[in-house]
């Protein structure tokens, strides 16, 4: 195995993707510039989902709660406690990490379909709680984070409402999450997660505590998803209960399936393609959901491994 050669290729590809995203900042028209920032943040959500679904093989239908935990952990601490941007961001991530750990402890007692249902139920409880405690959370109206609270002071002041700053902040988060997942999936822990996905019983008989490994995967996955939610609150200034709804649990699954499960760049590609298809379809018909549905059905029929998964299976075996 020419491991070094392969590593070089992998890093070159990932850096090239980041370079393209950086360059897009200077060429995209205003509307697409804002959309791209949003896509990068949501791609981080999808990357978090991919750690659990793609690599560890656990299908959660409750990831909206981790995204929303990050979002509300950030938004509520700003609105109610006057936290600064970095502190609010960290508390959002911490909320997601703790929630993911606890949910993992409970939900991992099940597997397969039961795991899907249990995670979905927990997410529903979470979403309904957000609406129930409307005095704090703004209920289904949500909360708007005022512009002065979205200024990041790091010596110099960065106004996260400024399009370029927002784009670069989204890119920085995306790059961090990309290299974090790349490091994870190339690590020994990543190899164990794939083994669990392929054959959990066998992995146990190789001496691995599969429960502990899955719990670590749920926690890592929830934490990355929460980072996306926290960034979303800061960059787009809105915290809303719709982000905790079942739709936002299914979207990252679709993005990952579309781009390619268990590929590091699949989540970005899937999120991007889905937005492009949605955007294009909705520009000429109000039945855009129908078109999105047809695209998804075609995808599952002809590219069940997703775009990058298919490329990897056919031509690019070295893709991580």
């Amino acid at each position: 195995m020419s491991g070094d050669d392969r590593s070089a290729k992998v890093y070159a590809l990932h850096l090239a993707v980041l370079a393209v995203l950086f360059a897009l900042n200077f060429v995209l028209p205003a509307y697409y510039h804002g959309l791209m920032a949003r896509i990068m943040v949501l791609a981080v959500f999808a990357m978090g989902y991919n750690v659990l679904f793609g690599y560890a093989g656990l299908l959660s239908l409750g990831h909206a709660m981790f995204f929303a935990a990050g979002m509300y952990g950030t938004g509520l601490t700003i609105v109610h406690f006057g936290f600064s941007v970095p502190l609010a961001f960290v508390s959002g991530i911490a909320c997601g990490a703790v929630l993911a750990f606890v949910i993992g402890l409970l939900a991992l007692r099940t597997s397969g379909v039961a795991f899907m249902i249990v995670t979905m139920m927990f997410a529903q409880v979470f979403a309904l709680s957000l609406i129930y405690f409307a005095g704090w959370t703004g209920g289904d109206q949500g909360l708007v984070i005022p512009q002065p609270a979205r200024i990041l002071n790091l010596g110099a002041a960065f106004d996260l409402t400024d399009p370029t700053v927002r784009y670069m902040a989204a890119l920085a988060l995306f790059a961090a999450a990309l290299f974090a997942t790349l490091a994870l999936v190339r690590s020994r822990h990543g190899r164990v997660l794939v083994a669990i996905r392929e054959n959990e019983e066998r992995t146990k008989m190789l001496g691995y505590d599969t429960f502990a490994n899955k719990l670590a995967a749920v926690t890592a996955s929830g934490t990355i998803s929460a980072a996306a939610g926290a960034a979303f609150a800061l960059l787009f200034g809105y915290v809303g209960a719709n982000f905790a709804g079942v739709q936002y649990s299914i979207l990252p699954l679709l993005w990952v399936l579309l781009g390619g499960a268990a590929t590091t760049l699949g989540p970005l590609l899937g999120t991007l393609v889905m937005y492009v298809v949605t955007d294009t379809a909705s520009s000429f018909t109000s039945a855009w959901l129908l078109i999105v549905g047809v695209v998804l059905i075609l995808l599952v029929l002809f590219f069940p491994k997703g775009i990058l998964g298919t490329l990897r299976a056919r031509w690019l075996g070295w893709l991580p």
Partner: protein
Amino acid sequence: MIGPLPMDPLLVTKGLTRRFGGLKAVDGVDFTLMPGEIRAVIGPNGAGKTTFVSMVCGRVLPSAGMILFDGGDITDMPPHSRVRQGIAYTFQITSVFPNLSVYDNVALPVQRTLTDGRSRGAIHTGVLTALEKVGLADRAAMQAGQLAYGHQRLLEVAMGLALKPRLLILDEPTQGLSDAEIEDFVRLVRTVAEDATVLLIEHNMPLVMQLADRITVFDAGRVLAEGTPEQIRSDAAVQAAYLGTGAGEAA
């Protein structure tokens, strides 16, 4: 056993029992395995051999009785902890990771045993050593699922070896192997037995007679007989229950 034992046994089971509904698959088995031994477990289909070793490695929990490994009680220990204690199990039905490379299949057990080594170098060396032992080093980059069946069985053994076990349980390892492959396999087990105790479930009687130090015969969930290959060959009860009269062709 007569007289004092020269060493402490590696594995002891006392009254080990497993019921499936009304059926007693394993019924009150007392079993002792000494370190360094190659022990074969034989018996007709449904005699409880696989259930017995599954309880030893923790895949099946006993209904009654206890299991001692190296003097410690492991009856309620989860399987992954037993592996860490040094009990490795290779599956009867080949159970490699078909979608992973041969290399990754072996890297999994190797990295498990490395307590200090975060280094990729240590994993790499361990993987190649294990693959060379079974003669699969040149196929490291292949997908495990694309290996020939005999090679998948060898990979399975390599994964067991890579765990550096004190007790290696082989559940029908030669099933589906050609005669030439079986010869290689016998050599391999002899090498393994230099460092580890081997517990072997096997139907191939000539192989068992050739390889085992002692043989335990199971029948209907109980131990019917135990002894050296010569003793077992001449045991009337065994002949009646299993071997048939005369030569061993049971499989």
